[in-house]
C-alpha cells in the first residue's frame, strides 16, 4: 500500500526529470529546556524546475524553519532530525542533509538563493548595496572586480532600481522598503541560482509595493527560468503567482496540488476553513466571517492523531484524535493532489 502511494507522489523512485528539489520526511526539531518543538515534522515536497511553489500557512506552522533547513540556516538549538533533501543539479543529484560545509557554501547563491521578509536583517548595514553584490558574485564566480560591479549595476537595473549607477554605492538605510527588497532580489539572482527561496518577501510592504515585487519576480522567472519557493501566509499572494501550492499546518504539509485547483476546490478541511475565514474583495460587506474555532496550539502541545482535529469541523471522534493521517494522492481531473486527512484515506 505505502509503496504505491510513494510512487504516485513522485518519491525518489520516479524518473521525474523535471524535479529540481525533493524533500522527503524532513524533520527539524528544537530541543529546548521545557520540551521539544517539532517545527517541521515529516514534510514531503518537491519543487519542479522553473515553477513557483507557494508554501502557505499560519504563523508558527513551520514554513520558515522548513525553508531554512534546506540551506541549513536553522538557528540553534534547531536541528534536522531526519529526512532527505535532494537537489537535482545538472551534474547529478546531491544530498543536502548531511552535506559538508564546503558543498553547502557552493550551493548557496549558486544553486539556491534566499530572500527574507525583512531585507535589513540580511543586508549588511555598513556596506553599500553594490559591494555586497560584488562580494557574493566574486565568492562564487571567477570574475574581476570591475566585471562584478558591472553585473551588480545590471542586476539593480533589472530589478527596477532607478539610477543603478548611483544606487550601487548606496547603503541599505538610504533605500525605501520596496527598494531594499528589490536590492535583495538583485543580490540573490546575481549568481543565477536555479532555485530562489523567498520567505514572506512582501509581508512588510504595502499592497502597491507588494504588487510591484510580485510582478518583478514573475518577470525575472520568465527571463532566468529559476524555480521559486514562495513562502507566504497570504492566500491571495499565492493565487497571484503560484503554479503549485502546499498548505502547512503544525509542521506538516496537509494539502498539495496545482495552485488554481487547490484554491478553487480545496479538499483538506483546514484549507477550506482558511479560505472561508478570509475577507475577500467584492464580497458582501458587513457579514460575519466563518472563523476557524480555537487557535494554532502552542508548539509543545501538538495534539494527538491529526494535529488539526481540535479545530476541524469534520472531525471524526475516536479516529482523528488517535490516528495520524497519511498523505493520500487523489485522482484529479487536472494535475496531482495530495491530502493528509483521514476523510480521504478510504478513497485511495
Amino acid at each position, binding site marked *: 500500500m505505502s509503496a504505491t502511494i510513494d510512487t504516485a507522489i513522485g518519491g525518489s523512485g520516479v524518473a521525474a526529470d523535471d524535479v529540481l528539489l525533493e524533500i522527503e520526511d524532513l524533520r527539524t526539531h528544537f530541543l529546548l529546556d521545557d520540551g521539544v518543538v517539532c517545527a517541521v515534522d515529516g514534510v514531503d515536497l518537491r519543487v519542479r524546475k522553473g515553477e513557483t511553489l507557494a508554501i502557505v500557512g*499560519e504563523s508558527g506552522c513551520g514554513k520558515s524553519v522548513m525553508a531554512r533547513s534546506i540551506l541549513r540556516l536553522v538557528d540553534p538549538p534547531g536541528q534536522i532530525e531526519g529526512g532527505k533533501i535532494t537537489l537535482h543539479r545538472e551534474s547529478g543529484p546531491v544530498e543536502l542533509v548531511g552535506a559538508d560545509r564546503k558543498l553547502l557554501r557552493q550551493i548557496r547563491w549558486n544553486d539556491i538563493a534566499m530572500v527574507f521578509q525583512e531585507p535589513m536583517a540580511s543586508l549588511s548595514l555598513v556596506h553599500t548595496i553594490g559591494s555586497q553584490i560584488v562580494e557574493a558574485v566574486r565568492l562564487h564566480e571567477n570574475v574581476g572586480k570591475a566585471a562584478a560591479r558591472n553585473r551588480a549595476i545590471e542586476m539593480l537595473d533589472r530589478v527596477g532600481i532607478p539610477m543603478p549607477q548611483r544606487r550601487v554605492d548606496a547603503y541599505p538605510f538610504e533605500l525605501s522598503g520596496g527598494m531594499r527588497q528589490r536590492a535583495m532580489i538583485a543580490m540573490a539572482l546575481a549568481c543565477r541560482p536555479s532555485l530562489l527561496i523567498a520567505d514572506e518577501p512582501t509581508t512588510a510592504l504595502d499592497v502597491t509595493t507588494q504588487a510591484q515585487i510580485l510582478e518583478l519576480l514573475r518577470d525575472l522567472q520568465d527571463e532566468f527560468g529559476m524555480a521559486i519557493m514562495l513562502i507566504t501566509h497570504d492566500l491571495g499572494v499565492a*493565487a*497571484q503567482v503560484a503554479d503549485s501550492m502546499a498548505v502547512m499546518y503544525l509542521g506538516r504539509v496537509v494539502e498539495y496540488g496545482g495552485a488554481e485547483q487547490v484554491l478553487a476546490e480545496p479538499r483538506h478541511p483546514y484549507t477550506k476553513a482558511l479560505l472561508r*475565514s*478570509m*475577507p475577500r474583495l467584492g464580497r458582501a460587506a*458587513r457579514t460575519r466571517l466563518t472563523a476557524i474555532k480555537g487557535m494554532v496550539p502552542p508548539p509543545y502541545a501538538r495534539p494527538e492523531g491529526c494535529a488539526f482535529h481540535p479545530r476541524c469541523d469534520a472531525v471524526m471522534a475516536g479516529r482523528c484524535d488517535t490516528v495520524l493521517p497519511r498523505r493520500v494522492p487523489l485522482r484529479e481531473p487536472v494535475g496531482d493532489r495530495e491530502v493528509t486527512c483521514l476523510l480521504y484515506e478510504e478513497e485511495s
Partner: protein
Amino acid sequence: MSTEPLLSIEGLTKHFPIRTGLLGRQVGAVKAVDEVDLVIEPGSTLGLVGESGCGKTTLGRCIVRAHDPTGGRMLYRQQDGAVIDVAGLKEKDLKTYRSEVRMIFQDPHSSLNPRKTLREIIGEPMRVHGYGTKEEIEARVGELLERVGLRPEYANRYPHAFSGGQRQRVGIARALALSPRLVVADEAVSALDVSVRAQILNLLMDLQEESGLAYLFVSHDLGIVEHVSDVVAVMYLGKVVEQGPTEDLYTKPLHPYTEALLSAVPDPDPAAKRHRERIKLLGDIADPAHVPPGCPFHPRCVYAKETCRTDAPPLREVGGRRVACHFAEELELRGVPDPDVREVSA
C-alpha cells in the same frame, strides 16, 4: 441615517517639524495630516485606508488626543447632545472625552504591560476614571473577559501567557472597559493569523451591534476594511482623496489612487486573476516631507495631465461622494467586480 454626527472633523491638520541636527532649527514640516474633513456617525464604522506613512495612525492619534492637532476642529457630540470642539481642549477638560473615545493598538505584544495581570490591565482605565469600587471593577473585568471570549479565571495571569489573538482580545476588553462611544482601531487585526483575525473581526462587529459604538477602523488591508466599514476614506500624503459608502467606492472608484490600490490587492480566487489587470502605479511610495505641487498624486498617476502638475484638486462632492481629482467625472475607473458577475462570465 437619521442621526447627527458623533464626531465631525474639519480641516484637521498635524504637522511634525523637521529640524536640522546641529542647531535644532526648523527647516520644514512633515504634513502627516493635512486639512482632513471626516464625519463619523454614531454606531457606524468609518474605514481608513492608504499606503504606509500616509497619516492614518497620526489621524487616529489626533482623534484620541494622543497628539495635539496643529490645526482644525473636532466637533464631538456629547451624550447630552451638546457639541464641543475637542481639538483644542486642555487636558483637564478632556476627561469625559477620553473615557468615551478609546483606542485599540496594532501590536498585541508591545501594547500590554508585561508586569501587570489582565485584571490590572483591563481595570486600569476604570480606576483612572473612578468607575466604582474595587469589587465593582473586579466584577466588570470578569464580565469583559467573558465578553471578548476569554475565561474570567485568566484575570490573574500575565500577558506573556497568551497568544497574539488572545492578547488582542485583552486589548479590546481594555478599550471597552468604560463603554466607549467611539473606538479607534489602528491595524487592530493586522498582526493576527487569518483564522484568528476572523474571530476578532466578528467580535468587533458583534460588540458594535450590541452597544451601538462607532469605529474608526484603520488598516492597510482593503479586504478587511471593505468587510467592516459603512463608509471608507482613502488617504494619500496626509489628505483624504476619496470618501464614500463602501460598496460604491469599491465597485466604482472615482479617484485614480483608489483604483490603483484596489487593483493591487491579491485575490485568492483563481477566477479573479484572469479578470483583473493591475493598474500600474508609477514610482515609489511618496514622502510626506516632500509633497509634490499640484495634485499630490500626479507623479504616480497614469491619468495625469498638464494641469495636474500645477493645480491642486480640492476635495469636492461628486455623485454623493467626495473626491479630489480634476477628472473624477470623465475617468472611467475600474473597481472590484461583483463576485457573482465574475463567476457568471468566468
